[in-house]
């Protein structure tokens, strides 16, 4: 589904990603861990097409397409979803209008008719229950005045609405208390099938207690320096990142 080869990216003149390799297949859950500043969020931003970053090398294939040549909206239409670490507030734009625009743009891309208002609202009602958001959600402005937990639940709600092939969860656990974490992780698990894949970017093992990864990668100084199974996450939790640094001879 996703092949990342030797991906390099800059912000300004500073190189952040220094040759990332990653392969994700349908049905898989990959965790990307690593210390602060290792490039985890940059990787998710670059895959989603954030124009703040400049790709300087490498290639990315997503479902047979050259991902890097697609606009951010077309990456979304092709089935790539990014759950933001810090979801932005958009005052004045109600969630219902926002989501309706998003869903109908996706349908348009796929040559489908826009959803009727009734169908849309019904689907919205179904999906918000996955992350236990109440019905006031529809009339509220996008992320405006949402608590930290609500913002993250709202991200997973949007994921449920757009039904992506690949979801990248960027530090979805940051700023969540344990109850919110359970709701968010529960939502992600409910949406998991053998056809879609998830990349979980996180600092801590904690989230992985709820979302069980098939593979764990350690991103350090812009490269994936170690990959393994779920046991790698536990080892990291126990020994910290210094252990990796030592292995790398630092």
């Amino acid at each position, binding site marked *: 589904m996703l092949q990342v080869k030797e991906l390099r990216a800059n912000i300004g003149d500073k190189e952040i990603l220094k040759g990332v390799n990653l392969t994700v297949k349908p049905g898989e859950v990959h965790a990307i861990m690593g210390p602060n500043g290792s490039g985890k969020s940059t990787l998710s931003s670059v895959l*989603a*097409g*954030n*124009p*703040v970053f400049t790709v300087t090398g490498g290639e990315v294939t997503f479902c047979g397409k050259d991902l890097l040549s697609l*606009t*951010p*909206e077309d*990456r*979304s*239409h092709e089935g790539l*979803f*990014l759950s*933001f670490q810090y*979801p*932005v507030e*958009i*005052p*004045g*734009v*109600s969630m219902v*209008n*926002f989501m309706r*625009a*998003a869903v*109908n*743009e*996706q349908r*348009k*891309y796929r040559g489908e*008719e*826009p*959803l*009727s*208002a009734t169908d849309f609202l019904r689907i919205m009602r179904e999906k918000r229950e996955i992350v236990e958001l109440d019905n006031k959600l529809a009339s509220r*402005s*996008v992320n405006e005045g949402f608590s930290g937990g609500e913002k993250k639940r709202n991200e997973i709600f*949007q994921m449920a609405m*757009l039904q992506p092939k690949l979801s990248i969860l960027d530090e979805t656990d940051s700023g969540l208390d344990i109850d919110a974490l359970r709701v968010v992780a529960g939502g992600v698990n409910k949406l998991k099938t053998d056809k879609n894949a998830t990349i979980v970017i996180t600092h801590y093992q904690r989230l992985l207690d709820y979302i069980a990864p098939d593979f764990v990668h350690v991103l350090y100084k812009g490269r994936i320096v170690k990959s393994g199974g779920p046991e790698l996450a536990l080892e990291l939790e126990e020994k910290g990142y210094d252990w990796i640094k030592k292995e790398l001879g630092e």
Partner: protein
Amino acid sequence: MEKDKNREKNDILDDVTTSEYKHGFVTEIETDIIPEGLDEDIIRLISQKKGEPEWLLDFRLRAFAYWKTMPMPQWAHLNIPEIDFQAISYYAAPKTKDAPKSLDEVDPEIIKTFDKLGIPLEERMHLAGVAVDAVMDSVSVRTTYREKLAELGVIFCSFNEAVKEYPDLVKKYLGSVVGYRDNFYAALNSAVFSDGSFVYIPKGVRCPMELSTYFRINAGGTGQFERTLIVADDESYVSYLEGCTAPMRDENQLHAAIVEIVVNDRAEVKYSTVQNWYPGDKEGKGGVYNFVTKRGICRESAKLSWTQVETGSAITWKYPSCILAGDNSIGEFYSVAVTNNYQQADTGTKMIHMGKNTRSTIVSKGISAGKSQNSYRGLVRVAPNADGARNYTQCDSLLLSAECGAHTFPYVDVKNKSAVVEHEATTSKINEEQIFYCNQRGIPTEEAVALIVNGYAKEVMNKLPMEFAVEAQKLLQVSLEGSVG
């Protein structure tokens, strides 16, 4: 329904990406233009062509004499090029001799023009319950549903017809709210006004349909000097819509309109405008100069509500105002003003509190893009006797580029200690993070800007009548094409 909406949306984008200004075409109909220039003889000629009574000619001549003594005002935050008032033709009328009695009598070219503009003069209008007084250049071409309205005693006709058929009403109210001495452009309009609309709602009548007028500049090199007079008698109600588009031109076009509204005891008037005159091209060439005087007077417990969506014109100079003369009267002003490229807007309102317990609300939303300049200018005045007056003002600015300007000039003049005057102001910018967030959810940048801008302007848009709101939303989107990115 949903499908239509979406299709419409795409059509708009297509139109915009393939053409500079959608409404930029000129209808080929014979136009009766009098020579350029302005003097007493020209004014006599205009009056004579219209077959006006002596008192109206006198009114025009007095206004002209006064106008000649006035300098062009320079106080607005506008860079106004020199206007040669002698290089303008002050009268243009489609050559149809007498007003048509039915659609068949209307010049087919005119009908085509309205079709192109998407103005549904025929059945669709009827279904929407809207009566239209269509103004092509300066003379009314056709008036709809007048008979239906007449049953209720509602008068809705062209200004010229009103002068002939209801001279007493016109004589009584003409200039009663906006005198010809009011300002430079008001004096000019009073001297040369061509045509416009007249509305009278009798006592206790609630006008059952939205009254609407579409204005359109058509003859090249002619200015347009519309005059609208609305009188809502005691305990009546009317909602009036004004919308305009203009064809593309190279030379600048002057537009100096007057709207006067009289709201008698316990009556209510809602006046909504969508203004989309040609704004000039991307380099700031051409475009309409729009100098408008709009004012209403509210008697006891009366209410006047102005709602405007201003997206057009190279220069906008416009301050729809309320004189709250009667006790317990209410004035409202809701405005969205969009400027892009080299457009300049200096717009706002005046709320003059004279009666006791008068209340006013001002909500102004400025949206600036490109290299444009967008100013809010407002005055809240509370007279010594206006006990218990209240005003709430909110003016917000949204910036879409680094080169545009947003300015706020709120004047407050309170002469009564019991008055409560509140003012809130914000300035914000659409940021790249918001755009990227939308992009990531599959919403392209242009759509995202439209979504955000419409969200920002929602408070005002919600005040527009339904059928206008849709048009206005489209306009916001179209006006801001390519302004972020």
